[in-house]
Every structure is written in structure tokens, then in C-alpha cells.
């Protein structure tokens, strides 16, 4: 165990993977100097420039080359800086990485990890603040992962690299500095949620940075006698239906909270499945459907706060459980 930041934790997982498997390579802009968030610190010194590959500002080709690398036997870890820039590589992600195995009838596979940090990043405005996890959940062939803690950013990255499928790996930009004790040897399983707090009145499903606000909301709720069970989904696709359903059998009420725009967000999928299957009351809380503004007052409007979560949870709790 060591006290690591979220950035350091991912670095540690990547270091271990590269040490274990000579076919693992990392590529992206600025990775040779450690990456602008420090998540590649020291790796080029250790593994050399042939395996920790500095790239031009060529997102389409960074991703496309990773597909080629993977088809030819490597296991690339691709850095996109932020998901907003990954938009420059959508053909490569959606038409190539996600579909190659299928299109070619299983002749090739694309075991790559595409790191596309999401989320608000204080004062970064409309083009550097998006959370687009639901886009990738909608695309057959892709796995989508969104770690909320340093421990998970170690264990889930390790799992993502070990996975034979293309994994969209979404760190959160406002979590890079978050620290905790990390067991670097622990590899998580993809597709398994974590119950972060037990409760009995409402099941609160969330992921990424919103987990921390959800836990704050749950704390505040307890003070007023409302008991929230907080589930950190961790993997968005495939999401852990069993854990969520098990909780709902107890609480009979679902709230999904995420930082992404609520309209068409992944909360809609979970809410829809639960409504279709269990028929219990559901609610969602995501960002309003507006771009992220620069001024802190405007940016704040797009944040899903503990207060807002608590307020929706309260309303939901008033509904008769079905």
C-alpha cells in the first residue's frame, strides 16, 4: 500500500503492465514528458521511446495507429488528453476499433485502451469539459470504464489493459490530485460495481467524480433520516445490473446521478431498464442540456451538486415504492 494520487495510481498500473508484457505500449501527445497531468511520469525513461511513444498532434492517427498496432499484435494504451479532443478520432474509435473484430469475422482483435478524460475542469469552458460516456456505451464492441478513486484508477486500468476488447477509459480531470492509500497489486474486474455506502430508502447509482458528491448527499440525507445506498458503477458498459437490481429489491426506488448532460445521458438507459423490468419509481439527475460556461457562476450551473442530489432523492423518497 502507498499513498497515491489518482494520476499516480494510473501510472503505477501502466508501469506494472508494461513491465509484465513487452507488447504493451503507450502513445500520445506529451507522454514522454509524463503527460500534462503527470499520469505517464517516468515511463519513457524506464521503457524507452519505442514503447512510450511521443506523437504529433494527430488524434485521428494516434487512434488509427493504435488500431493497427492492436491488429498486428500489440496492446496499445492511447492517450487522448480529453474526450473533447478524441472527437477528432471518432471514425477510428467507432468505425475501426469497435468494429474491426466483427467486420473481419474474428480474424483480428483490437485490445486497446483509449484514455479519454471527461468532466468539468474548473474554468475550461465548453470544449474541455464534456462527459460523453453514453456515446460509447451505445456503440457495439466497446467497453466503457470510469474510475472514481485512486484505487480504482489503478485496478481498473490494469484490468482494462488486460482486457482483449477495446476499452474507452474515462478518467475525470478534477480527480487527478485526489489521494488515498492504494493497493497497487489489486486488479479489479470490469463490469462490477461497488456499493460505496449501504442504505435502505433509495438506490443512488453514480460514477466518476459524481460519486464523491453522491456520498456527500448521502451523508446529509442521513442527518434527516433518509437512507441512501450509493452504488459506484465503475464500468458503464457493461453496467452491473445484478448489483443495482439487488439494491433495488431492497429500496424499490432508483436515482441515477451523473455529470454528463441529462438528456440522452447513460442515466436514461439505466432508468429505462429499471422502469421496464422492475417498474419501480425512477429519477435522474444530470447536467442541464447547455454547454459548459467559463465563468465560475455559469460553470456552477452545470454541476450536479450534493444539494441537488439530495433534493431529488427527497422527492423520490416521497413516492410510494412499487
Amino acid at each position, binding site marked *: 500500500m502507498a499513498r497515491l494520487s489518482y494520476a499516480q495510481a494510473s501510472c503505477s498500473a501502466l508501469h506494472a503492465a508494461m513491465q509484465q508484457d513487452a*507488447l504493451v*505500449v503507450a502513445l500520445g501527445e506529451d507522454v514522454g514528458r509524463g503527460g500534462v497531468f503527470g499520469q505517464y511520469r517516468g515511463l519513457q525513461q524506464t521503457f524507452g521511446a*519505442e*514503447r512510450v*511513444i511521443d*506523437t*504529433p498532434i*494527430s488524434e*485521428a*492517427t494516434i*487512434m*488509427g*495507429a*493504435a*488500431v*493497427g*498496432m*492492436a*491488429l*498486428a*499484435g*500489440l496492446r*496499445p494504451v492511447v492517450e487522448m488528453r480529453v474526450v473533447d479532443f478524441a472527437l477528432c478520432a471518432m*471514425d*477510428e474509435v467507432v*468505425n*475501426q476499433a469497435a468494429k*474491426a*473484430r*466483427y*467486420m*473481419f*469475422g*474474428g*480474424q*483480428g482483435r483490437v485490445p486497446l485502451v483509449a484514455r479519454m478524460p471527461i468532466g468539468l475542469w474548473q474554468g475550461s469552458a465548453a470544449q474541455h469539459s464534456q462527459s460523453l460516456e453514453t456515446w460509447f456505451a451505445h456503440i*457495439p*464492441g*466497446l*467497453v466503457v470504464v470510469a474510475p472514481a478513486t485512486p484505487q480504482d484508477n489503478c485496478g481498473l486500468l490494469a484490468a482494462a489493459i488486460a*482486457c*482483449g*476488447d*477495446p*476499452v474507452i477509459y474515462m478518467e475525470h480531470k478534477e480527480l487527478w490530485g485526489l489521494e488515498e492509500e492504494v493497493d497497487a497489486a489489486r486488479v479489479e474486474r*470490469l*463490469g462490477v460495481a461497488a456499493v460505496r455506502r449501504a442504505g435502505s430508502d433509495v438506490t443512488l447509482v453514480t460514477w466518476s467524480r459524481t460519486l464523491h458528491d453522491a456520498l456527500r448527499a448521502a451523508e446529509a440525507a442521513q442527518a434527516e433520516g433518509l437512507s441512501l445506498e450509493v452504488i459506484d458503477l465503475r464500468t458503464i*458498459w*457493461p453496467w452491473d*445490473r445484478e448489483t443495482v437490481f439487488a439494491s433495488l429489491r431492497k429500496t424499490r426506488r432508483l436515482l441515477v446521478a451523473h455529470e454528463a448532460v441529462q438528456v440522452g445521458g447513460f442515466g436514461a438507459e439505466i432508468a429505462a*431498464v429499471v422502469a421496464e*423490468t422492475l417498474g419501480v419509481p425512477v429519477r435522474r439527475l444530470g447536467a442541464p442540456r447547455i454547454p459548459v460556461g467559463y465563468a465560475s457562476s455559469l460553470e456552477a450551473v452545470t454541476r450536479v451538486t450534493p444539494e441537488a442530489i439530495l433534493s431529488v432523492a427527497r422527492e423520490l423518497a416521497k413516492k410510494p415504492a412499487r
Partner: protein
Amino acid sequence: MSETAMSLAHAQALYRTMARIRAFENAAEEASKGGVAAFGASLAQAKVRGPLHLSTGQEAVAAGVCAQLRADDLLTSTHRGHGHSIAKGASIERMMCELFGRATGYNGGKGGSMHIADFSVGMLGANGVVAAGIPIAVGAAHALRVRGGGALVACFFGDGAINRGPFLEGLNWAGIHRLPVLFVCEDNRWSATTATGAMTAGEGALARAQAIGVPGLAVNGNDIFVVDAAAAALTAQIRAHGGPRFLHAVTYRIKGHVSVDAAGYRSHDEVARALEQDPLELAAIRIAAIGGVRAVLAAIDAEAQAEVAAAVAAADAAPSPPDAEAYTDIQDTGAGRWRD
């Protein structure tokens, strides 16, 4: 480079590749009649469904380049990928089965013409997106280098692809990393219904490549002798760790953009002039000049046609993939979670 010496045996082998491609394209074209709805064609079913892009008339590029490739070299292709596949060694029968959407096709019926692939011979796939093969080729070359062994990647794309971003990005990438890639621009002068020249500023493909640090050659892509010699020279340079090279091969798309396209947007004259430069005819003349006899080529043609006819028969008789196959080879994580 036009008066290159070539052994008769090699020349006839190249001719055979071209003849096999031609026969394949003709049969595929026939089987696609009544297929995909575009260019005013109907929605009726055909044995070969969907957009079918024929490389008829461009056979010398595929045959000449691939003759210089080793079994462990890799290849990325375009939407117009039959010739590349055949030249790299793919089985005509399994290709035809794929075009017919059969379980016995290379992709088990999942890909069809636009995604034809034979990884066993290093053919990493046709691609439905213009220029998408370029970054993939570059990455594959990176992998070849990390893994060792001295193989290279041949990367085919059309003249229209040189106006898409990945052309710049991919060549630059190969240039800075000095990767073993042979970029082959198969310049058939058309991009769907658009004359590519009018959409392309500057001196063209090779000048662009050179400015991005990738040297190369521009050649008559309909002359198999010329293509063969150029590919030999360029692959030798790449194998000598010279970094990426570029081949600009000028040819012509004899057919429409897709098989159901009558290509009424181009002049009869242009097509007539191009037909005079048919690469198989040119090759026959060249081969005669080095002592070959027509009868041998005629026999090769007949053999190719017979092979293709057998492939069509096999494809026709082969089973469609069962529905359950639709659900395989997608992803392992979360497999089975189709609607929740």
C-alpha cells in the same frame, strides 16, 4: 523505368495475378446486378449485396506491388480491395463466398466486399472509410518494428484519399518514426462521380508525400513492368531501413464507382482512351516483346475464369451464416448483454 528487364516466368506470373483479379471482378459484377440502391438502381436483391467497388482496369497496381511483398508483410486496403487481396494470396473461393454473404467466406459473411480480409496472408482488411487504412497501416508498421523481423506494410489508397486528413497525419507519422511502410496511391482519376483533379490543389500525391518527408516515385500504374520495377526499388529501400516510401501509380477505373453505377458523368472519349490502355492488354504486348506467346496467356485467362466459375458455384452452394453468428466476435466483456 519503362524498359525494365523481366524474366518471362515472372512476367507470366504477374499476368496470372492480373487475370485472376479481372476474372474475379467480372464475376462479382455479374452477381451484383440488381443490388444496392444508389445511382438510381433498385432495391431488389442480388447475390452480391451492398456497394460493390470493382478494381477492373487497376489490376497492374495490385499485382505489381504485391509481387514484391513477402508472406509476413502486411497490407491495408480500401473499399476497392479485391485486387489487393487476391494479389496478396487470398483464396478466390473464400473471397467469393464472402461477397455472397456465406458462412464459408473469409469474414463468415460479416464483412462482405467492403471489409474483405485475410489475416492469414497479412491482408488486414478492406475499409469502407476513405483513407482509414492509412493510420492503421502506420500502426501496424509500428508493431512490426516493436516485434522485430524486418517485414513491411503496403498501404493502398485512392487518389481521393489524399485530400483527407489521415493522409497528412499518417505520412508524417511514418516519416518521423521512419516506419517500414510503402504508401501506394492508386490514382484512377475519379472519386465516386467527381474528377479528383478538380478537387486537388498543388502538384499531386507524390509532391505532397515528398513535402511530408516521404520520398517515392510516380509511375504508369497500368504497365505491370513499370509497377513491378518501382515496387521492387521502393521495397528494397524500405527493407534497407530507409523509412517509408511512396508510390504514385496512375491508372484508370474502367467501371463505375460501384457496380450499379453507369458512370454517365464521364465522357465516352475518356473511357475509350482508357480502354486502349487496358493493363492486361499492355502486359500481353510487353510479354510478347520479351518472347512470350499469346497462347500461354490465353491459357492463363481460361484457367482464371475456370477458377472463378468454380468459386461462384461454391459460393452459391455454401450456407448462409446462422442467426446465432450475428452475436459472435463482438466483444468478450459483456457478451450476451444485447438489449439491456
